[in-house]
């Protein structure tokens, strides 16, 4: 199972992190003055004595994507032997959810011998004021009351909605990585993977990553999927790096991938959005695979991937996401008896997106009718769904009044009821 190189080569300690000396020192000084930390670590890194560092209740790390904000916190936790409790933008960060996850995390005694806990709120600028209702308040509340270190990260800390967080946190900016620094990291990875990479090729990757080390590493993995050599020509042939792939191109790469790895690697592309991909795969599998058995195998894999998505969403065990990706990409791509695919496939636009709005309304209305019938007829909703609904529908065909009376009783239009039957 190929782990993303971003994970594989993520620095594990402070000393492995390049080019963020100031941020490392501030963070270490803050931890060492306000919380328990190993002496050795403090002696080496905690060099700052500023008043605002000592008094800060939380730290807000900011900087462009892919320069190591999250990595820095992970490494910090490791250095001081703390357990990391993490929430990122993909979670539904309503106040309730935050209290659930973090609250629990903080109460439970550590099972694995950690010295303490550190809370990381990743990408706080991703908080939606409306959807993550109460999320901001919950974070603020936690900062005010918790006795553990809390670190926040953001791409843009000057977002007005983050003002309250900014006010009570120590704001620390991370430096953008230089081209040379990115190249150095890529070189190390090539060596460790036993790949021969031309320096010029790596420089070109670094240049177009604009200091986003994560994107550069993802690209490198994409280029080296299933091969051990990288030349400038490879990169020229692929065009400008960081291809902002359209969904059509992503689908093409998945379905036409020659190997499992090649299909899997599509997820490393920065423009890959897995939630969208699932919707498009659902729509396009029958278009690409005409044979019933092939089609059903592809859906079997997508269905299993969706089960992992469901489990991840419920349990927040994000490590399982990689199974979902492998099944949904490699699994859908590499089916038994795969047909030869034509050079141009007309992928249809997902009907689903158009139907989704309708669905919500229809389901709500049906639920209303079912609940009403169950209550008034003294039967279960299951029985209404399985039996009474069909009786109603048969009666309605013969007698217009049936629908009208039901519509009146529920205060919705007769047409809406007819559509349900």
């Amino acid at each position: 199972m190929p782990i993303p190189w971003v994970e594989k080569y993520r620095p594990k300690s402070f000393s492995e992190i390049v080019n963020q000396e100031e941020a490392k020192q501030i963070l270490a000084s803050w931890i060492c003055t306000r919380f328990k930390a190993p002496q050795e670590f403090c002696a080496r890194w905690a060099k700052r004595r500023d008043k605002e560092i000592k008094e800060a209740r939380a730290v807000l790390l900011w900087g462009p994507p892919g320069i190591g904000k999250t990595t820095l916190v992970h490494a910090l936790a490791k250095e001081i032997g703390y357990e990391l409790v993490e929430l990122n933008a993909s979670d539904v960060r309503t106040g309730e959810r935050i209290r659930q996850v973090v609250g629990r995390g903080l109460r439970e005694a550590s099972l694995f011998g950690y010295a303490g806990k550190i809370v990381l709120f990743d990408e706080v600028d991703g908080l939606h004021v409306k959807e993550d209702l109460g999320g901001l308040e919950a974070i603020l509340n936690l900062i005010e009351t918790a006795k553990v270190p809390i670190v926040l990260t953001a791409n843009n800390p000057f977002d007005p909605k983050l003002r309250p967080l900014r006010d009570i946190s120590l704001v620390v900016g991370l430096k953008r990585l230089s081209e040379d620094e990115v190249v150095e990291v890529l070189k190390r990875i090539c060596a460790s993977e036993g790949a021969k990479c031309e320096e010029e090729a790596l420089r070109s990757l670094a240049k177009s990553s604009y200091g986003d080390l994560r994107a550069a590493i993802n690209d490198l993995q994409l280029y080296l999927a299933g091969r051990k050599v990288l030349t400038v020509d490879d990169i020229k042939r692929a065009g400008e790096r960081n291809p902002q792939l359209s969904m059509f191109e992503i689908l093409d790469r998945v379905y036409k991938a020659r190997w499992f790895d090649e299909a899997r690697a599509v997820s490393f592309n920065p423009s890959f959005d897995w939630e969208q991909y699932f919707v498009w795969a659902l729509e396009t599998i029958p278009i690409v695979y005409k044979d019933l058995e092939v089609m059903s195998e592809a859906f079997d894999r997508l269905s299993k991937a969706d089960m992992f998505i469901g489990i991840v969403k419920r349990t927040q065990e994000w490590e399982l996401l990689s199974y979902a990706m492998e099944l949904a990409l490699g699994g859908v791509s590499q089916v038994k008896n795969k047909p030869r695919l034509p050079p141009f496939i007309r992928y249809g636009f997902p009907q689903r997106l158009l139907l989704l709005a309708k669905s919500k309304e229809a389901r709500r209305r049906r639920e209303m009718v079912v609940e009403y019938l169950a209550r008034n007829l003294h039967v279960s909703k299951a029985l209404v769904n399985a039996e009474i609904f069909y009786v109603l529908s048969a009666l309605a065909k013969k007698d217009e009044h049936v629908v009208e009376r039901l519509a009146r009783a529920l205060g919705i239009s007769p047409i809406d009821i007819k559509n349900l039957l």
Partner: protein
Amino acid sequence: MSELFWFEKYRPRSFEEVVDLEEVKARLREFVKAGNLPHLLFYGPPGTGKTTMALVLARELYGEYWRENTLELNASDERGIGVIRERVKEFARTAPVGKAPFKLVILDEADNMTSDAQQALRRIMEIYAQNTRFILLANYVSRIIDPIISRCAVFRFSPMPRHLMAERLREIARSEGVELKDDAIDLIYEISEGDMRKAINLLQVAAAVSKVVDANAVASAAAAVRPSDVLELFNLAMGGDLAKARDKLRELMYIKGVAGVDLIRVFQRELIRMQLDDDVKAEVAELLSEVDYRLTQGADEEIQLMYFLTKLGSIGKKIRVAPKKR
């Protein structure tokens, strides 16, 4: 609205109106006379009068105030025992209205609860025993845990005898101005298998088809109340027309608002009656159980149902290639 469905319109409102279940009535009358009641457990097949009897009891106990004093819950509709506890707690907070010193909680489908939930239910029954009595309704007494059974007076409900059902159907037909033929009654009895609710539903749909209800009208009524749209989906997939099947699926899910898991449950109920070889039936049954599980685990119902339909299509393909083994 309750007038719309005959089974509700003609649901007995008093002990007198219940035409069978003499022993059950006799014992319940004693309780009403004494003005006290133990917890009760009614069990028996669907449509044998458990809910009716519980509601009759409520009316006999409280007269016009029966609604205020009765809480109807359905174990399979409530989300977990915690919700049931909250609702009982809220209900038990206020004193009963009228002469009886307690309120009634009617809990339907109690046998669908896990044994853990039933243990919790037992605790709830004890905590609120001061001013509530529970009537538990179940299809199978064997699925109720012993500690609950031992705390309840247990009553068995059996299907209505043929001649009483015939009498009841004739009464209803008479008061609705419908002519009911004897062969129709025979067929209704046969199809409904003693389930009174099903029987009256059939009569009503048949009467909507024609004012003279004979065996033919009943047969077309029976066809009309089958879930034809869901079965059409099944046949489209089985026949290999996945494009049409997908359109049908989306119509059911997104226009009619049917939940994916309900679709699977309908297939499961209808499977026995389908015209399929037994080995195919077994294969479909296995697939249904698998999809039901995946639906509970997964995040996207349409993905799971497309897996179901395409898999069904490839099962169908095998049959089409090698039509009959026998």
